[in-house]
């Protein structure tokens, strides 16, 4: 624990030295709306005032603190990474603030997908916190009942536990393989492309029917 804190302190000192040089070398810092980036991480797609087209007003305010790290994988046997919660419920048209706190020594993300693309670049609200750092970001959800995917997109972090869901209103059902919420998707054994599958079933059925009819037609003739 002491080592980790020491490393964070080192990183912080490095940042304090390094940060002014970013500012000096580049003046295009906030070229994308709602985007902040530095060595502590980044927030992309933040939106605290622009309402979705289908909302007349902000219906409710939420503030969640999300803790992330390997420690939160403990309750779930088959995972390595995790959030302290894997499900959040909010009202449609509400404003949500996430305080994302990374307790590991490596970076993690809290990335939400499926927001309207006219408000959010590529439909994403994306937070990334470097090891030992926190990020805060705000976004507004539209009015439809929908379940949004939340995950960490570092290779294998979602697969190994960093997968969660944000349920707006009554939601649109649970996603697969959310720790503590839903099971893994059952993988199919046979892969046939959709159309072919139905034709094959239809053909087998026809074979059986014709076989039966022919037997009926010529009984002991």
């Amino acid at each position, binding site marked *: 624990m002491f080592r980790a804190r020491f490393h964070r302190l080192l990183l912080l000192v490095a940042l304090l030295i390094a940060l002014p040089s970013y500012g000096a070398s580049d003046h295009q810092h906030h070229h994308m709306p709602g985007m902040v980036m530095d060595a502590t991480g980044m927030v992309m797609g933040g939106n605290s005032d622009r309402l979705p087209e289908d909302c007349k007003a902000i219906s409710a305010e939420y503030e969640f603190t999300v803790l992330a790290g390997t420690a939160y994988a403990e309750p779930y046997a088959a995972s390595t990474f995790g959030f302290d919660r894997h499900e959040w419920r909010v009202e449609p048209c509400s404003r949500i603030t996430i305080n994302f706190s990374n307790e590991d020594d490596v970076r993690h993300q809290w990335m939400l997908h499926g927001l309207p693309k006219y408000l959010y670049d590529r439909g994403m609200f994306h937070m990334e916190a470097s090891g030992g750092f926190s990020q805060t970001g705000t976004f507004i959800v539209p009015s439809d009942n929908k379940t949004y995917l939340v995950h960490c997109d570092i290779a294998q972090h979602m697969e190994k536990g960093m997968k969660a869901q944000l349920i707006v209103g009554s939601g649109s059902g649970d996603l697969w393989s959310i720790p503590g919420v839903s099971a893994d998707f059952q993988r*199919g054994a046979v892969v046939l492309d959709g159309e072919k599958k139905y034709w094959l079933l239809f053909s087998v059925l026809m074979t059986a029917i014709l076989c039966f009819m022919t*037997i009926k037609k010529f009984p002991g003739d």
Partner: protein
Amino acid sequence: MRRFYRALTLLLLLLVFAALTPWQWYPRDWRVWYAGNFGAGSYLQQAATIPAVPGDNTEEACPPDIKGWRKSQTIAGVDVSASSNCLADNPHAVAAFVKGTNNVGHMTLMKSRLSPDAVVKGRDLDGDGDPDEIHIRLEVFELNGGSPDLNVPVTQYAIAPGVMPGLWVFAPKSAGMSTENFESLLAQPGLRLPSPAIRVEQGDKVIVTLENTHYMPHTIHFHGVDHPFQTASGEGNDGVPVISEKPVMPGRQRSYEMQPRQAGTMFYHCHVEVQAHVLMGLNGMFVIEENRPNNWVQTFNIGDGYVRHSSVAVKEKYDREYDLHYQDLDKELGAKIQQTNDPRLITQQIHREYDISQADFEYYTLNGRSFPYTAKDSLIVTAPGEKLKLRVLNGGSEGVAIHTHGHKVTISHYDGVEHPEPARITRDVVWIASAQRVDLELSTVDDGLHSYGEGVWLIHDHQERGVTTNGFGPGGNVSAIVYERFLQDDGWPMTFGMAWQNFLTPGFYQRQEDGSGATTLLPGVEASGPSNLRLLALAVIAGLFVGFIASWVMKGRSNV
């Protein structure tokens, strides 16, 4: 008479059924017999010149360079030379590696997809105009790993068409997603096999921090790099879990310190359960460049291959520099991370059950790809009268016998140590055992010894398994020394033999029956399966046929 008609009906049904059945549904022996007795339908081209799976499955050899990554450019004051290959390294990342991610602007950093602290370059300690404090951060990524929800690999990286073995690699600390974008399953260009070549300058004070973003424990051992056994604070620095230190657990980090006094081509790799972790891809080249004034070195060479910003010392002697990393892979080992999503089972299978003494190796890669993908970014492009430096590492578990067509190369360094000039050996097969490095001098002076003239000359492992992919060729680590006159504008080599569309289809490397071309010589193989209506007709006839037989048999019984 009725019996005669019944037999005739059955025969007719049988004939129609046979006619409707696609040729490829018949046993191969029957088709060979048929072709032997009645001949093939018409003249057919030689197998290998027919596209294996015609139509949509053939991949584009060389995608257009939309982002303009291939051309020579100056970014953040760094000259990035033109890259002749069809897939060029991201020039923004190259510039960030040269200047340090702490010294480039926001846009360059965004386009490089690197974290601001991936390569931090600090003070100039010897006052010669280049930074000597280098802090590198490495992360660990899983490519072609499993998923609880999909039955295809995720964070995909294909070493050859349709070939996606499970891999673990080191990569400079990045920012944002591991995939190209949210809709894509493909790994972003900075994440790939091999673990990238690292470059520092002789005498630099180097810190390498391993940030373990993976779900298994890892370390880094700096093989051949001058480093103390313990850091200044007394912690283990050799990266060996059984001797010097505990491994770095998932979500944790550790820093290694070194100030290499000797220059040379060295090696780094994970030292946890080496028989499996190194073989999964956790190994890379570590180059210490000779100290020169104003020597800003390119700290990472992603995917190895052509060095777009060579060091001062290399430019003094050579026209171009290439990093060549050979590695073999075990298909069965790689598959273990795809078969289950449970880290406990993966650990059990890889750390306890995997038996390398019973293993064989299916994939042979050069710079993380096998033929024909080697032609995308690992061609050695040159021109007459040049001198090239090839740094070669064998990161694999078997030796490689590198053979250069059309050239004899001179070995200037063994394991990073310079060989005295009068004693140097010039030859056309260079044997490199596991973990060994050689620096080769490739001269393109057409004197019948060093070079036999311009052309597209293969370079490959001459142990024949090295030129196969899953035991099937052409594949493996085959690449080529290509003279500019023989290079097309898009970076693809001119070829004068068999068409390459064959090799650019996933079916070819899955040994699809007709993909190899072998059975296309037999009569009438159809490109795709039967149409839906034909399938239905076959079913109807089969139904009638079985019905007739059944009614016949039942009638016979009722008479008894």
